[in-house]
């Protein structure tokens, strides 16, 4: 009930950054770079990005880079495309993409594209449409889409389109809101949204809203705040967001806040974490909640950051 407690959430995020000793923190050490993206983007949307030491963050991010050009989830961890995007996104927030050797990073990413247009996550060859989105998003932000075969990348994504209008990890995989976001985002970035049956997918997505107002990720599953991002941004990119009850969703997200300690959880009264705090706040931004900067649904960065990168030359 009630309002978004921005101060609390900002404090929570900053505290997570400091608390490196809890079991929760250690078990997620390998994806700290993702965590940085989630925390910092949330702070930016709430207008609190200046609470962090920009130089410290940038320097730590760069230490996560491997000699291959890719980034690991933390210092000393193997490079993977998942963390490479987070690195680029964090630098974008601070308008510091220029500290990167663009050629080196783009080559790392381009080297992961396969013959059929798909992308592997790293040298070990796992293929997933998440990696297609990540590659296209990364290279677009670096203005280096010319390094890959975009047509083949699009063709592969389209081959993952299912009979219910949604998308899965690989051809034939069941539709899942997270994968749908990745595929819709990738097609949005490459100007290829005409491949999507917007009415069919839009209906599948709007049916994710359950009676409590929250969104689930696939039929007959429990609602979860993180789907407020994946389902919502997908709906926005295909202009079908009016098919859900936005007010009810806002209420659901607000109910997932920890009013005392800050942070947002997956469901009301569950433990909070940075992941769900980001998706809750980002979802509220997409729902035009007052006091938040608008976020871009395709690049998952604040609109002013995206406009700065693409509309100024």
């Amino acid at each position: 009930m009630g309002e978004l407690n921005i101060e609390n959430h900002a404090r929570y995020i900053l505290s997570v950054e400091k608390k490196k000793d809890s079991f929760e923190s250690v078990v997620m050490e390998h994806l700290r770079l993702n965590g940085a993206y989630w925390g910092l983007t949330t702070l930016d949307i709430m207008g609190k990005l200046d609470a962090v030491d920009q130089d410290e963050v940038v320097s730590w991010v760069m230490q996560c880079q491997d000699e291959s050009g890719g980034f690991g989830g933390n210092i000393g961890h193997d490079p993977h495309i998942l963390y490479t995007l987070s690195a680029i996104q964090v630098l974008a927030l601070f308008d510091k993409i220029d500290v990167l050797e663009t050629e080196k990073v783009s080559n790392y990413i381009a080297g992961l594209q396969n013959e059929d247009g798909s992308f592997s996550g790293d040298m070990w060859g796992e293929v997933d449409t998440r990696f297609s989105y990540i590659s296209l998003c990364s290279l677009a932000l670096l203005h280096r889409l010319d390094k890959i075969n975009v047509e083949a990348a699009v063709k592969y994504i389209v081959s993952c389109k299912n009979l219910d209008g949604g998308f899965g990890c690989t051809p034939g995989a069941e539709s899942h809101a997270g994968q749908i976001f990745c595929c819709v985002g990738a097609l949005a970035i490459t100007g290829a949204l005409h491949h999507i049956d917007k009415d069919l997918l839009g209906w599948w997505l709007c049916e994710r809203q359950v009676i409590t107002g929250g969104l689930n990720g696939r039929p007959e599953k429990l609602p979860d705040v993180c789907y407020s991002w994946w389902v919502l941004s997908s709906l926005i990119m295909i202009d079908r967001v009016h098919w859900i009850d936005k007010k009810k969703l806002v209420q659901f997200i607000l109910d997932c806040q920890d009013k005392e300690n800050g942070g947002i959880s997956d469901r009301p009264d569950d433990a909070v974490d940075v992941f769900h705090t980001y998706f809750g706040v980002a979802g509220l931004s997409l729902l035009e909640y007052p006091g938040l900067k608008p976020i871009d649904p395709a690049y998952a960065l604040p609109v002013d950051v995206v406009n700065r990168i693409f509309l100024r030359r």
Partner: protein
Amino acid sequence: MHGRPRKPPTQEEQDASALKADKLRHLQSQNLHFHHNKIFTKEGLEISAKLLEVNPEHYTGWNYRKLAVQHFTDKKSENAAESESIQSILDEELRVVETALRANLKSYGAWHHRKWVLSKGHSSVDRELRLLGKFQKLDARNFHAWNYRRFVTALKKIPDEEELQYTTNMISDNFSNYSAWHNRSLLLSNLLEKGVKEYSEKGSVLREEYEFVVQALFTDPDDQSGWFYHLWLLEQTAILEPFLLSSWPSHSSKLYISANDYSSDQRSSPISHCFSKTREFPFILCFSEPMVGVSSSTVSIECDYLTCSELTWTPLSANGSGFAQAWLTYLKFTDATHTLEACPVKVAVAHFQGIINMSGTSCSQSSHLFFTVHIPSHDQNQAEEQTTDRISWKEENFCMYAAESHDADLLHSLCKLEMIRQKSKDVGWSMKVIADEIDRCRELLSLTECKIGKLTLARLLMANYSLVSVSCSHDRNDVHYEEILSLYDDLMKIDPSHICYYEDERSLVLLKQMTSSSGSFLKNIHHYRESTSSSLNLYSCLRLNSLSLSRIGSIEQLLWVQMLDLSHNKIRSTEGLEALQLLSCLNLSHNKICSFTALETLRLLKSLKVLGISYNEIGAHSIDTRRYLFSSPLNHALGSDWSGDIESLDHWDAFFIFKGLDLIQLDIMGNAAVNDRLKASLVKLMPALKWLDGESCN
């Protein structure tokens, strides 16, 4: 990260957590040490196994194991006697994966490691399927397991029929298994495509599937899983090959051309088309879905007085895909032509293969149509002044269409807007199946109020009507749209969260109803005349205002429209209007246009001169839902087109819309984005603009 209860930890819990954290940190740093120094020993493998058991998401741990396996198997590959050791090494990997999966059945790293081991040619089908059976009993919806299952069955070439039986078992166990239904639809699609044995008869296969799913629907009508499968079955049943819907000029219509205008009824819009300069008129084809390949090779046009060879066809679509439902070309009169009396123009569409939809299916049925062109001799040299009167959409300027003798041609052409009839398609079995499903749906709804059931009934009824209109076997005025409209009205009440979805669907049905016969059309065609004007000219305007329309549809019936009033509705974008190439006056005031990007398709309307978009919501929203459906540098659909001389980044999209338009009149007030600066830049962008928000421009 998911599903943990929120409660502050006790001191005991905190201490235990700190201890666990210490142990894990130690394991992780040890593992990294072995990994960075490339130390591949039994100890290293034991440490990584312990680590991955506690934290299977620590991906560098899996990478270490892969490198270790490569290290050991490379050393031993020459020695055949050591193959048992390789086997035991890989066995150990499978054991570690299984342990990790028990800790976290959703670990991408663990599943991928197993696939990686399997790619080395190890493990038996039985073993993998048994493992999957166990895991799928624990969580029947785990998509990793289903993906892995598809991976194994493909690798080991297990026949689709066997897997189909597995889904039957899963579903019979528990109807609420969307993952199993999904796999089922996949397998059946493959089997139907191959069309071997009992799968060659699509109709009977689908009938059996309907029987199967209906059990689920009647058992638990509120579970969505079966309903989505039912929707897929309906699509398979009602699917049609792409075909030609309509054209303008329409089949067997008469086209009158004067110095300033071309129309079907000798009067149409207060803004004239400058025929006398170009001596050409548009010809539009509208298909049932977006197509590619419309060209002079696939469409032939014959007329003695027109230059018909090597025509350029343009897809009417704002996205750069090359696919469009409506296609446009211009037919030009030969220089010698001055007067024409009933000159026939013959058109053959798809007489050669080449017009293809997005799935690669071609428009196989060819259509033949003709129309006649009339150029009265006395009009030839008179070039009427273009009107400079401001168009006012006030109610008092409109009056109902009175049926008079010279309206016969308009009525005639409206009737002929209906589909170009073709050979009756074999839709008999589809219609029978759909009729049965309609009965079953009604039966279910008599037992229980079920939202998705109602929606399915509405879809079944619409599918039925689509097939009816194609089969030519029924009188099309038999269609009962009222029932479908009332189903949507019900749905809006019982499922208010999705009210806008039902509104959109309802709008499409309403438009179908309104454009289904000349009678219903005429109710919405009004005469327009400026009340203060002394001119006797009456123009025809299609008025679809105040109908709660949230979406534009049935555009194949609207290709003739020159003046269109869509005000006081809930329309969100101009998508669909790009086909209306004759449109010169458009009123979209008092709608739900939330951004300039929503107007993108107007850029394709070269005839548009008068536009009203006042009292919408442009500038009132921080989130633009049309942003990625609009060609811009954000989606790499604009290359060098992007110019740096946009004054500010506020409303850069307005710049792109209006620089492509050549308006005489624009009404834009009542939108948050409108201020003096914006108005000034619009006046600069459109030199022909005479009226802006009711004021004269100079």
